[in-house]
């Protein structure tokens, strides 16, 4: 057998191997896609219930006799505040279910309605005292989270009792229970009760933190990039800076949290949990990203432009700030947006500096205690209530939405403003 024949005989095998190899490659790519698809599908299905809230229709008796008000009582705020609104809601529930007599059953009945309902009722009455009269007030109030989960998903869990299912069935027959768009999720802050919990506080916290990050990392990052790209002499010091930047880009984010804890909180005494310190830590983290991308953008400006400016008598500084930097700006901003997107999704270092606290108030500035979207996700994912899982997934969707928008802006900037020379 000569060589040609050996080759010819082996050909079939070799081609099969070729095909197989190509298939492996294709499979690898598709595995990546499938993982991505499963991840997104899983989160979207988990999140959908959170955008709906279950409400129960109540006729709340607001006649003066029930409220134990004398005819001549002034309806000032103090009087109105003192009314037992929880009792009114319980009474209206008893009226809706007159057949419920046992104490235990009554307790279960009261649990149908969210504990936040009384505050809603109180605010309504205080804002509009004319509601008090012989006509009962008809009102949709939020259902408790266990009822909510049961009603939306129609799965029976241990948290809902048989009697309660009976109540819900009756409400359904009377058309007294419905689902509507969950506005609470966007207008309220964190709460122990899932049906009253929202992301507004975390959203504002993220806003303030990112604002600090942007205000620090963008100017410092651009200045550093300009120096390294245009002015830095070739020496050991410059090399050292570059080595440091490259290494910082690969330092685990949690180490930046340790830095923030030891230096900013314990040494400089910046208050814990504040957007200021979160922003400081995140800007140190995003600086390498911004510096590296800004340098690439500055490098891509052709030398002919620089030479023309220098030739016309501009100083080096003028050349850079009047000509090179403006031309590199779209590229720099693209990098900055990508850096900000990273900062928006970052969680680990913020856990170290106390941004994990349970915070009910919406932060109004750099020094208020705050939490951010990813940390809110982390906090809620730990909660045992099933309704919090849906809220977590919904918050993830909001976060991913912001990231998608930011990246889309970056891509748009790159496509439309970045000039190819």
């Amino acid at each position, binding site marked *: 057998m000569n060589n040609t024949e050996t*080759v010819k005989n082996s050909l079939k095998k*070799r*081609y099969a*191997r*070729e095909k197989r*190899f*190509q298939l*492996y*490659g*294709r*499979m*690898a*790519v598709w595995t*990546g*896609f499938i*993982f*991505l698809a499963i*991840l997104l599908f*899983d989160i979207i299905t988990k999140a959908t219930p959170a955008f709906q809230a279950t409400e129960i229709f109540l006729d709340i008796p607001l006649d003066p006799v029930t409220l134990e008000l004398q005819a001549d009582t002034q309806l000032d705020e103090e009087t109105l505040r003192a009314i037992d609104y929880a009792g009114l809601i319980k009474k209206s529930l008893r009226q809706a279910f007159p057949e419920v007599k046992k104490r235990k059953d009554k307790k279960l009945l009261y649990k149908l309605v969210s504990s936040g309902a009384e505050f809603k009722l109180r605010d309504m009455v205080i804002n509009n005292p004319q509601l008090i009269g012989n006509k009962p007030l008809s009102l949709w109030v939020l259902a408790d989270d266990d009822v909510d989960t049961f009603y939306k998903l129609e799965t029976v869990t241990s948290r809902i009792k048989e009697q309660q299912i009976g109540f819900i069935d009756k409400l359904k027959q009377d058309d007294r229970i419905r689902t509507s768009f969950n506005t609470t999720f966007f207008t309220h802050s964190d709460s122990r009760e899932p049906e009253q919990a929202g992301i507004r506080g975390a959203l504002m916290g993220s806003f303030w933190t990112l604002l600090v990050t942007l205000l620090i990392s963008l*100017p410092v*990052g651009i*200045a*550093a*990039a300009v*120096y*390294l790209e245009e*002015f*830095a002499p070739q020496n050991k010091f410059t090399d*050292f*800076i570059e080595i*440091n930047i*490259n*290494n*910082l880009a690969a*330092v*685990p984010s*949690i*180490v930046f949290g*340790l830095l923030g*804890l*030891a230096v900013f909180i314990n040494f400089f005494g910046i208050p814990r949990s504040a957007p200021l310190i979160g922003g400081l830590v995140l800007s*140190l983290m995003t600086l390498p990203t911004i510096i590296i991308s800004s340098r690439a953008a500055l490098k891509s400006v052709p030398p002919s432009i620089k030479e023309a400016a220098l030739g016309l008598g501009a*100083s*080096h*500084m003028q050349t850079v700030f009047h000509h090179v930097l403006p031309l590199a700006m779209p590229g720099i901003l693209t990098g900055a947006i990508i850096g900000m997107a990273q900062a*928006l*999704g*970052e*969680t*680990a270092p913020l*856990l*170290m500096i106390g941004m994990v606290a349970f915070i009910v108030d919406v932060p109004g500035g750099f020094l208020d205690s705050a939490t951010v979207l*990813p940390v809110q*996700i*982390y906090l809620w*994912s730990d909660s045992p209530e099933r309704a919090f899982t849906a809220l977590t*997934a919904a918050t993830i969707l909001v*976060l*991913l939405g912001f*990231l998608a928008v930011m990246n889309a802006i970056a891509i748009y900037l790159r496509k439309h403003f970045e000039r190819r020379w």
Partner: protein
Amino acid sequence: MNASALIFIIIGLSLISYFSGRHRASVSAKSQTLIALPKHYGYMTAIWSGLPALLLIILWAMFKPAYLHEQIIQSLPASVILQAQDQLDLYVNSINLAIENGEPVEDPIMQKAMESYQVADSNSKWILTTLVFVIGLSGIIFSLTGALTKVQARVKVEKVIRIFLMLCSAVAIVTTIGIVLSVLFEALRFFEAVSFFDFVFGTTWSPQTAIRVDQVGSSGSFGAIPLFVGTILISLIALIIAVPIGLLSAIYLSEYASAKFRAIAKPALEVLAGIPTVVYGFFAALTVAPFIRDVGQSIGLTVASESALAAGIVMGVMIIPFVSSLSDDVINAVPQAMRDGSLGLGATQSETIKQVIIPAALPGIVGGVLLAASRAIGETMIVVMAAGLSAKLTANPLEAVTTVTVQIVTLLTGDQEFDSPKTLAAFALGLMLFVTTLVLNVFALHIVRKYREQYE
């Protein structure tokens, strides 16, 4: 006057200085040729009025607490100072608290200390305000003299800007030094309490230290071996997932795929890298871990609900794009001539890839894998949410293990004294983490750079 008011004054004085300098220069420009533009003179005088004053305020803000503390100590009688250090600290603290809250105190010693504090405080504020005004006005006065236009204003201004730019780029160095110092100092304090060898070679990790002396069963033991093993186990699982998938997809996308498919597939894979880690953690803890547990149960295996496998798989998915984009770079860097040579000799495309391209790109690929490993080791949120807390020394991926990063987070997020060995242990772990990832990164970057030089 407080600091923010002073800063506004400085800004105001600089602005006046700027306009006065510019005006003066443009007036003299009518009679003589200037060496710089009028606005440069404005910038120069503004910097003169503002910058030293600003630096002064920053210096003052840094040294003020120590100075005022010294004033309080000096006002105290010897009987108080001669107390034990911690009692003295407590005493000074209560004085500080009283000053902060503006409460009247009974103790005459305290009253005296508060008085001397207030005198020192108001005196220093006066001195500071005067200095700010003197500096600011000196700039304005200078801008009015004839000497102004003899200075090379542009050169001076550009020098200041250049120094500013350099300082900004030195932030990177300061950050690194800050990380090293903060982690190192706390770690050294930890090693005073717990010996270094017990930490690195100990096999039991239970950081609960006794709060009371007579407490039983919580002596606190800080053997970090279980944490290292757990970290390595989860990272290995992640690499087993990510390296083949990432490498094969990089090969497919750069060697086989059509330009059109590549243009869609590459960014789509990179979406995986853009998803925040907390989202992966949620996915791992609530979907993958229960799924693996159920599958394991159905085939008769006992799988922990927080198994290392779940965290590892999800972490692997996260670093797929990392491996694939790094491998893509090195595969593209292999010269076309080597491909052509191999194909010309009759090798099939897969043979060319396996026998020519991969060996040629191997150093770069190894570098990429090392970078991916360093990322897996330092990854926090996935393991915090999906891996366990119990430090078990095991290599079984179906059991719950804990990692270095998980322990750092748990040690530091509870309410804890800052000086207890428990919190200091977190910094020792942080030091280990930092050193390990640093070595991996430096080594990997070195390999990648060397490899690049080979083909340039």
